[in-house]
């Protein structure tokens, strides 16, 4: 898998299609593993999506005392193995992004697996496939780098120029999630 999950928060329109689509992935048992939140509805309608960062050195796996959270060769951090998981829920607290969830009925943890049955064939995960605003994309590394440069270019076209005290505003407003 050479592709990258790319999030551009500002594009999000809060439709929660990514959540609906997450439920549709095979093996997801109709439970979503991502979430969408308002930044602050009292102030504006801006929302942002959050999904698993598929961390290189994942906190969820690190804090798991049972070693139940496995990482595939191409770097996808999977849900806890049922036979190993002891239900301590450390992972749900350890993850800085609040991704792993615990199913009390089934007594098991579940999290984003980047729609592994799709992405292992280089087919986009369900969330990135349906996102109507391209806030979530599944793209090549090169394409991501180009998008980063574009953002800077756009700011210049707008006639803005970063100065020392506002240059943070020119930092591209997205996360690139590396899968390998």
């Amino acid at each position, binding site marked *: 898998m050479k592709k990258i999950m790319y999030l551009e928060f500002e*594009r999000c*329109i809060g*439709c929660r299609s990514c959540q609906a*689509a997450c439920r549709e992935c095979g093996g997801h048992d109709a439970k979503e593993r991502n979430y969408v939140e308002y930044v602050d509805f009292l102030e*504006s309608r*801006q929302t942002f999506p959050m999904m698993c960062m598929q961390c290189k050195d994942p906190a969820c796996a690190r804090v798991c005392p049972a070693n139940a959270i496995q990482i595939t060769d191409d770097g996808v951090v999977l849900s806890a193995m049922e036979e190993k998981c002891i239900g301590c829920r450390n992972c749900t607290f350890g993850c800085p992004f609040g991704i792993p969830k615990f199913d009390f009925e089934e007594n098991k943890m579940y999290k984003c697996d980047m729609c592994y049955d799709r992405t292992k064939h280089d087919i986009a995960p369900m969330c990135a496939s*349906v*996102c*109507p*605003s391209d806030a979530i994309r599944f793209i090549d590394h090169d394409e991501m780098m180009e998008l980063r440069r574009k953002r800077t270019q756009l700011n210049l076209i707008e006639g803005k120029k970063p100065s020392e005290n506002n240059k943070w505003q020119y930092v591209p407003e997205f996360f690139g999630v590396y899968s390998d």
Partner: protein
Amino acid sequence: MTQFIVKPGTKNLHHEGEKLITTHCCYCAMQCGMHIRVNEKTGKVVGVEPRYDWPVTLGKMCPKGVTAYQTVDHEERITKPLIKKNGEFVESSWDEALDLIEKNFKRLQKEHGKDALSVYGGVSMTNEKCYLVGKYARVALGTRFVDYNGRFCMSSAAGGFMKTLGTDRGATLPWPELEHTDCFFIAGWNAAECHPTSIQWLWKARDKGAKMIVVDPRETQIARLADVHLDIKSGTDSALANGMLHIIVRDGYVDEAYVKERCNNYEEMKEKVKEFTPEYTSKITGVSVEKLEKAAKIYGQSPRSVVMFCRGIEQQSKGVDNVSIYTSMALLRGQIGKFASGVATVTGQGNGQGGREHGQKADALPGYRKIADPEHVKYVAGVWGIKPEEMPKAGVSAYEMFDEIQKGNIHAMHVMCSNPAVSAPNTEYVWDSLRKLDFLVVSDFFMSETAEFADVVLPATTWAEDEGTTTNLEGRVIRIRKVKDPIGESKTDWQIMKLIAERMGKGKFFPYENVPQIFEEFRLASKGGKADYYGITYDRIDKEDGVFWPCPSEDHPGTPTMFKEKFGTPDGKANLAVVGWQEPAEIPTAKYPHTLTTGRVVFHYLSGTQTRRVKFLMEQCPLPYAELHPELASQYNLANGDKVKLTTPRSSMVLDVRLTKAIRNDHVFVPYHWGKELSVNQLTNPALDPTSRMPEFKVCAVKIEKV
């Protein structure tokens, strides 16, 4: 013929034991492409796969589209005809139900004349079915009373386009061209919630630096990101648009050559807009002079622009005027008929475009023909095999049919693909009218609020159990494929119409065995009309990613861009709007001091009959609410989650408060997708536009009380 359409190089996930069938979403007019996953053994619909290679939507879907398949094998489907006995619905056989319908229809026509019957249609169904509704009413039942829910949706846009451009096609340009536009002037379109998959095109254009101006009383997602958000008072669009024309003329942004060659009324229009100075416009609309100036400057200077609008400006008692003036903005800039520019109304219902063209409307016949024109009647009567003099005269609009019930002129109604008990304004009057009917037949696949009033409910099929064509918001005719056989004893709407026609002794006019036969007749019926589908075939749709009407012959390429050389008016010229300012039908008073406006949320579709039965969508948005600015709320000591009572001259209702600064501080917003005591249409004003007969859903005066 293959049911799975995919372009070389596109990868989709095929689950073992499943097949994919290519179709489009059943809900809004984006008609997002999708493949439905069907279990090959059980035949059940199990999920959805994105259609990445559908050029309009590229695999993207909103949450309604993602979950649409869940309505097909839904446990609440009506699977047998139901007859009401002693106030309770009892399952019956088709024969028993049809016997009852035949007996009552014939009795009522004998007692009160042909026009005692009426048909109330809808445009969330295929062209084939929409076409048949008009024929069914006029030939099978022989009544003049037929109309459809498009009156609450597209009729103002249609009226405005007819007046200015001479032909009503929702968009004058294909959607993928939007990427190349320099400026969007958007009025009354909550794009992110109502047509989410359009956003990708807007954002792509913005990535390239396109400007965006958004007119909306609420700071919607697109308004928040707009270069200028014109935070207008609901119902003042005609002033705002005239104000824009004023500055465009004043500052020399007019494409004089284009206007001279292609438009009428320029001098009169210039004279008219003189009074709409930014100061005067600002006073009426509540938008600051600076914002008006800035918006007009950006719009006026953009080389390629699209003016886009939606129900926000159309669901008003001046809807047609609003459409005409906003459209004139595009005309003055010489934009219509060119690449990546033009004007578009964004159709709400799945087949809002196709469904309004082919004779479901009280005064219209297939191909946008008019019942008032003897030549048109002659042509269509010929196709239908009746005598021209047998063609009933024009009826009345949807809401006015309820007046006719109250007056005792309409005694029975057949409602198809519609839920007026929720979607019509002033619902308590509508409920009373439905109760007054001697006999009501409703075809639906769920027990809608309207169906609850029925004497007979006929089990119809969902979109996935029948085939046909729809026309999306661009005017592109596309194909809906049958995914599975109808469940239980449900039947398609066309089969139901055919069965009743047979009972009324008109079976020979409805000899159809399958949908392609209806399509063939419909092509012919539209031939030579404004909306000419004659050259469109199912094969061409598959090969060419849909075909844009007008398409008069099989070797005609279709018409992606409208009005390249001339307009659809008799003299080929567009008519610039010469329209003054007029208040909405109801304005705030001491007793009702604020403005109520209504609209959609992304999780629901129309009256919610389908989406309120989908788990994911209900989890996201289970109930309507009243959205208010904290400044307005504090006047009534209302906090988030409090209960508020809203009262208008029609009625009152209680809702939960949701506070946000993303709305004008003198407006209240309530979404409309719920029925009965949760229906905001208990409060809305049935004031109708004089031309389109569109009710004023978007503006009425309201009183706020804490409870």
